[in-house]
């Protein structure tokens, strides 16, 4: 397993408040990594450190062996795309215009782009399934459609790395599965996907690599079959469970017994 994106001995926090200590993680290249854990365990904070939104109190996040903080903003943005939670689109913006904003790191200082931009926007909208919505104002769309538009925007950034903070939250179950299947497909095409997920069964079903966190620390990581068992569910979530093979896919399936 190789890894271009790594974190070494991170201490993370906001001001005085420490969220995480001694976190080290190597994101496997070309794989779908799911970060799971209870609320407020430091999943989002860790993701923010990877995309330079949070500077570690100590320790280093590296891309290709270099501290992420030392990369130029646009150069880094051509490698790593990020989708945060709770996004609000500007007023009066159409889907196509919003998706086109993902091209920013590929454009000049004055905002001139090339024909490659239009092609990337078209492809991103097709992959995320929002082509028919292209000329609609974003504010008129449903929550699920809007989430797919934001995904299209990050896809238009055309980055080898995609980091997503709870991308499936607030979506209905059909859209959740569509999105997860999309991430798996992007992984198959060679991209590295990292997502914070809430549903452990979805994580087991779609991810290649599970990172389980609790109280700011990484408790276990590895392939779903190797790490997800009753013991882990008890330790991480405090939830007594049975873990059995999913009859459809053979991946671990968690059935809480409370």
């Amino acid at each position: 397993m190789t890894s271009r994106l790594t974190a070494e001995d991170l201490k993370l926090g906001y001001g005085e408040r420490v969220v995480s200590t001694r976190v080290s993680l190597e994101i496997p290249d070309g794989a779908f990594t799911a970060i799971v854990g209870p609320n407020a365990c430091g999943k989002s904070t860790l993701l923010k450190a990877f995309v330079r939104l949070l500077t570690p109190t100590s320790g280093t996040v590296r891309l290709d062996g270099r501290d992420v903080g030392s990369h130029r903003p646009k150069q880094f943005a051509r490698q790593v795309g990020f989708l945060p939670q709770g996004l609000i689109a500007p007023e009066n913006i159409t889907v196509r215009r919003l998706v086109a904003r993902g091209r920013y790191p590929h454009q000049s200082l004055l905002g001139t782009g090339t024909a490659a931009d239009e092609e990337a926007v078209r492809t991103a909208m097709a992959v995320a399934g929002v082509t028919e919505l292209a000329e609609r104002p974003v504010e008129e769309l449903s929550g699920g459609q809007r989430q797919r538009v934001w995904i299209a925007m990050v896809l238009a950034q055309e980055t080898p790395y995609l980091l997503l903070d709870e991308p499936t939250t607030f979506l209905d179950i059909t859209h959740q599965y569509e999105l997860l299947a999309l991430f798996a497909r992007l992984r198959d095409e060679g991209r590295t996907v990292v997502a914070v997920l809430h549903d452990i069964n979805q994580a087991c079903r779609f991810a290649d690599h599970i990172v389980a966190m609790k109280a700011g620390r990484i408790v276990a990581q590895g392939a779903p079959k190797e790490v997800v068992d009753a013991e882990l569910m008890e330790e991480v979530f405090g939830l007594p469970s049975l873990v059995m093979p999913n009859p459809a896919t053979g991946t671990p399936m968690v059935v809480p017994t409370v």
Partner: protein
Amino acid sequence: MNGTLTLRAGPAVIHVERRTVVVSAALVVVAVVLALVALGRGQEWAGPGEVLAALAGYGDSAFVIRQWRLPRVVAALVFGAALGLAGAVFQNLTRNALGSPDVIGLDAGAYTGVLVAVTVLNGTAGQLAVGSVAGGLLAAVVIYLLSLDSGLSGMRLVVIGIAVNAMLTAVNSWIVLRAELDVAIAATGWNAGSLNGVDWSELRLPFAVLGGFVLLLMLISHAMHQAALGDEIAATSGVGLGRLRLLMVLAGVGCTATVTAVAGPIVFIALAAPQIGRRLARAGGVPLVPAALTGAVLLLAADLVAQLLLQPVALPVGVVTTAIGGCYLIWLLGMEVKRR
């Protein structure tokens, strides 16, 4: 009237909102009409034909129109545009319609710098320009330090700015009271914000300085546009937010302070023009070009009103903008409170 225009130059492609282009063209037409009226205004009104002939150098009124009226009209247009830009920059920065330099005390700070340059130094044009920009930046630093908890955005910064504005206004009054009589009289007229008696020789330096700041704004406008998506998306799509904000403060203060150095603090234009421009263009964020053009139109219109209202006495244009701006500010504060 939705959709975009695509402009191509070789391999480079740039998209422009069609509605923004149409609105901008309409504002330019209004500005030209107002300029013709302002140039024709006098004891005997000159018609548009006579004004155009005079501009070309023909006719009896050529000297009056080109040397006396034209500087004032051009100053109103350029300064109005500069104030509109400054307002748009700070409203983008603070993400608040109230976060404009005249409301949060940057104009007052710039004016403090001007007063110091006049009373302590000997008040050359260069000293006024430097003093004004330095005063504005200093006020910006103070407001930033006092509102550190909330970063550079939010209502907190605006409220602190309003307090800083009140304090600086008091400081300005104190300086004027302590100054020599002739300086004090000049400063008081200035304090209201006035374009009375500007001529070409006074305008060269400020126009050159404003040109520099406008160039800076053009260089950062695409990044500002991207930053309207929110801090997180902006940063992870490649905007260097720290540097961008610094340059925005510099350009915004530069525009408003340069105007203050020549004409004194003219309020309301920076507050209202960007919002009017934004609504006309129906754009997300606060776009720069409609803000600049609306500012130019507003200041020229206000200056015309100031000259016509109590003829033959020419009011300082700042009196007119303050009167209109006060009403607008009350309405805006009402809306902000209701939203909460």
